[in-house]
């Protein structure tokens, strides 16, 4: 069951700035199996965003190999990369990146518009199912401006789910949200991971958020400095049900 989704070997990403080259990623090797929930941690400049860009097929490595489901992504053309992003990956961004003045349903449909194999009917059905999965089926005709931040992020998650991706990539997905809403998002991601078996890679710099994942990879200066399995995974749902309420009450009484 635990199939290898991602295999990265000796991956290097170099940037040249002002005549100097520096390595944003320096000899990274890692493997991600199906059904994992990984957080990538690190301070700014540690290379976590560069790694996410490469994982997301938005960027290609300077050297080394990246196999996504056995396919060497480093050797693909721009159009082939676009197709992989469309069929195999789902993105969640810090700032949601929903299209303004476009209904939640149409926002969720967006990736399938770039897939000619999907009919209009199928597209709407899948979008409705995805919105249902993020518990927003009653808001599908709302515009982003009519939704709260948490709801907007859930629409974005539905958009990432619609193509049934191999890998969901989240970039500081809770960065713009308050703690309670963040926990709500984490609860949703945990649910997707445990119930639907989605493979999730979550980039964050918050320890608090990382504690919801099963595995944490920490980067510094372009190298992996630790790769640990979380023995004590927090359950966001339980936290929201009891603990969070009380802690919030405490802050209010202070």
């Amino acid at each position, binding site marked *: 069951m635990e199939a290898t989704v991602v295999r990265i070997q000796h991956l290097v990403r170099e940037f040249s700035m002002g005549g100097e080259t520096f390595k944003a990623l320096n000899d990274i090797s890692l493997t991600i199996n199906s059904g994992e929930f990984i957080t990538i941690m690190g301070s700014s400049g540690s290379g976590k965003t560069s790694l996410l*860009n490469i994982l*997301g097929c*938005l*960027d290609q490595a300077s050297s080394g190999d990246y196999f996504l489901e056995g396919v060497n992504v480093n050797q693909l053309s*721009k*159009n082939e990369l*676009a*197709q*992989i*992003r*469309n*069929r195999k990956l789902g*993105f969640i*961004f810090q700032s949601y*990146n929903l*299209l*303004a*003045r*476009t209904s939640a349903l*149409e926002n969720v449909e*967006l*990736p399938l*518009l*770039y*897939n*000619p194999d999907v009919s209009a009917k199928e597209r709407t059905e899948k979008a409705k199912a995805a919105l249902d999965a993020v518990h927003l089926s009653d808001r599908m005709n709302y515009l982003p401006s009519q939704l709260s931040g948490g709801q907007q992020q859930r629409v974005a998650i539905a*958009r990432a789910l619609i193509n049934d991706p191999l890998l969901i990539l989240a970039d500081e997905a809770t960065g713009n949200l308050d703690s309670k809403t963040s926990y709500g998002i984490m609860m949703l991601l945990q649910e997707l991971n445990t119930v639907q078996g989605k493979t999730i890679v979550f980039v964050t710099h918050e320890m608090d958020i990382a504690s919801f994942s099963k595995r944490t990879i920490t980067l510094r200066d372009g190298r992996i400095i630790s790769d640990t399995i979380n023995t004590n995974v927090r359950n966001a749902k339980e936290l929201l049900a009891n603990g969070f309420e009380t802690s919030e009450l405490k802050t209010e009484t202070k």
Partner: protein
Amino acid sequence: MKISNLIRIAWRALFRNKIRTFLTMLGIIIGVASVISMIAIGQGSKQSIQKQITAMGSNMIIIRPVSNLMGGARMDNSSVQTLTVSDVKALEKQVSTINGVSGSVSSRGQIINGPYNWSTTVQGVSPSYLSIRGWTLAEGIPFNSQDVKLASKVCLIGQTLVKNLFPNGENVLGQRIRFKRIPFKIIGILNRKGENTFGQDQDDVLLTPLSTVQKRILSTIYYQTIFASAVEENATELAASDIQRVLRRNHKLQKEVEDDFTVRTQAELIRTFSSTSQTLTLLLTVIASISLIVGGIGIMNIMYVSVTERTREIGLRMSLGARSMDLLLQFLIEAIMISISGGLIGVVLGISVSKSVSYFMHWPILITQSSVLISFLVCFVTGVFFGYYPALKASRMNPITALRYE
């Protein structure tokens, strides 16, 4: 990528910015509307000038004798005696490209009605003269070949004569007026024709049967002029050469001898006027086209702004799997949609403007299918041309930097 999906994407994007889309469209709308209405006005005036010339008798051909030299001095045309009734008969029989021939002789003098008098030209013509000139009667009847045979003392008069000889507004038909002591019975009144293009009063005429002037006034058997009309405007040149051939034969002119007559057509006049109104149309079209180009630049400007403003959207679309080509096409289709729908509205507006110009200002207009088609085509080309570079800019963005664009 399905083109229908791209059209859907472009449509949604345009619909999100209704006001901006409309304002961008406005440039094209005004451009197309002005092109169409300007061409309509230009073509309309051209057509109306042509009509006026035709009304003057654009197919009219005038044959005059060439005055001969008498001891080195050119004599007056009217003294020349070469055009005769046999010429008219020969022309009638042998030239198929004309449908009317009339000899003409005229004499100037005072016309008298009781206390009123007026100086004018009495012109003797045959009954076909009216159709050659395209003149019509307001009242009464024309004279016929019987009147010509009998040299009847009847006449048709123009509006200027009516005004000056009968200033009290009495009934004119049946009245008699005198010219050189000969009483003429008025049997018809010509319709008002106004001044011709040269400022000549076309209503200052008195027409009588040819033979009346020949026998009763001038005592001559010759014609001063022969008028003929070609079957159609385009056939005038051909008719003129036919006439020349027939007359040379009738006058028994040897090959080396010059014509003893001249044949004139109105073709030159038409050419002058056509080229004038052609220039007018061209000028109006150029001005209108400039506004279309300005509209196109408006599209380009807005598309550039739009591409820059939607950088994050472009990044997002790329991250969701849009290829460069998809984005190029999306923005190109947006530009084309703006220009085409602007074009459609512009066509409707242009036609309505032209119609209201003709309704309120009574200007002649002519909306041609080609002007509508061409301006619509130009719209499409404008959309592609001015939309291409912004679209190219969008398609060449790097998804990573585009996603982080603030």
